[in-house]
């Protein structure tokens, strides 16, 4: 399958301080790629390098097969949509007028505004000035602006960090629709459920390099420890092997009528995150 992003031995130093040391990965056409890692691990830095907002210290970053630093041409700009923490809006203007400017800049017909506002559930708010919006609403406008021009490649840096569960679900549906239409999505998030719900593959970035890269399902299998947790009537918990070794123990507890519940210890992406990075989620 065709690679939309190819990153090889990417390094970025901020005055001798390494943010990225040796990062390599590919993103395939049409996939939703989760870029996970603790706060300060270099996710936003990577996005900035990939969108020509920052120059790398070393290594290679190709987007659509060309060096990321050469993406300033109009044809590439139209293929890329970006949402980062530095995507500002004009606060005195209405939602509609903010998006109208971007329609003109990207040669998109104005009727697209209602389409994207529907996707982020803001149709009724479009005449409101951005300064009057809540944080979550503002984030949804920025999101709508990122895919206004139907980009082939969408960079989303923590797109749902300020959203309530209902809007988050609505956005997931929108992002899944975009994926259906062939959009490649590069997503960073601190929400492991989000990564699990949306991503075909996830990469864990830590200490300047990719520590793990696979589909959430494969990762869960890889990290499964083949144990059961048995909760007993006296309130204690016992970890038991899933294999024959644990059979006798479970049998004994069962015979003694001591079991409240038994469950399989499947790791979540969050567990894997903690194990790989040795850090708690931010």
């Amino acid at each position, binding site marked *: 399958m065709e690679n939309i992003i190819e990153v090889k031995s990417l390094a970025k130093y901020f005055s001798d301080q390494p943010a990225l040391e040796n990062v390599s990965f590919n993103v395939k056409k049409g996939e939703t790629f989760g870029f996970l890692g603790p706060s300060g691990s270099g996710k936003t830095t990577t996005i900035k390098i990939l969108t020509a907002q*920052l120059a790398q210290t070393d290594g290679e970053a190709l987007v659509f097969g060309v060096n990321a630093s050469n993406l300033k041409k109009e044809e590439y700009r139209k293929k890329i949509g970006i949402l980062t923490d530095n995507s500002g809006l*004009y606060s*005195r*203007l209405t939602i509609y*007028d903010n998006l109208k400017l*971007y329609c*003109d*800049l990207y*040669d998109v017909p104005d009727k697209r505004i209602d389409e994207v506002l529907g996707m982020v559930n803001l149709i009724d708010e479009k005449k409101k*000035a951005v300064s009057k919006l809540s944080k979550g609403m503002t984030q949804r406008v920025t999101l709508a602006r990122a895919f206004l021009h139907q980009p082939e490649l969408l960079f989303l840096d923590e797109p749902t960090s300020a959203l309530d569960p209902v809007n988050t679900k609505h956005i997931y549906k929108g992002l899944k629709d975009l994926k259906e239409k062939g959009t490649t999505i590069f997503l960073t998030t601190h929400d492991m459920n989000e990564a699990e719900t949306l991503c075909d593959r996830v990469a864990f970035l830590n200490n300047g390099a990719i520590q793990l890269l696979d589909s959430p399902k494969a990762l869960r299998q890889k990290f499964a420890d083949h144990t059961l947790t048995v909760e007993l009537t006296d309130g204690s918990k016992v970890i038991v092997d899933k294999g024959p070794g644990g059979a006798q123990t479970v049998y004994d507890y069962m015979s003694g009528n001591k079991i409240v519940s038994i469950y399989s210890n499947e790791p979540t992406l969050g567990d894997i995150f903690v194990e790989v990075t040795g850090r708690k989620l931010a």
Partner: protein
Amino acid sequence: MTFSMKRSMAILYKDYKDVSKNLYVSTTVLLPLVMAAIYGRMGIEAIDTHYMVINMIFSLVAAYVQCSLIAEEKEKNTLRGLMLSPASTLEILFGKSLLSFISTIAVIIIAAFLTGYNPDNVIIVGMAIILSAVFYIGVGTLLGLLTKSVMEASVVILPIMMIFSFGSFLTPFIEKYPVLKFIEYLPNLQLIELANQVEAGAGLADVWFHLAVIIVWTAAVFALVVAVYKKRMMD
């Protein structure tokens, strides 16, 4: 690379809507008109006095308003959005200068009417004023790009305003200290010199040098603006 007027006009339209809701900027535009009305009532004859008003307009409307518009785009993180769009450097810089340019020219025309300034050769003086307006907008853009916030920009622009708006007060010093002779070549003094000569009956053949000096200044500022702008596209 083709130039898309549509994109520049979209930025102008956006700026117009934004500024019409921004009391701070709209009052700044009106200030020189109040001064022009007062001078007009007093009745002034000297070219230098007309140009005090015009230089004030250049400083406040062309340079200062432009500087705040650019600084605000930086402060609110909207400039990056424009930079990452398909719009080219030229389309953005041109679009982003249009509102200040139109306001500057409009305010100068109204002020000239109020102070009763009626140049002998409107074409030459008009050309010189348009070029100067572009120069001051360039200065405003440059300072806006170099500063981080509207607040910072308002402070940084003060010395610039001093030099350019009160430039004609410096003339006696130039006569006293020859080291300061280069000040004569400042675009504001060149403009006044040109205007005085036009009133004395000079034609284009007589004042081309002053026009050329202003063009050189404008070109230099423009080159600097583009260089700094390109730097600002990256962190």
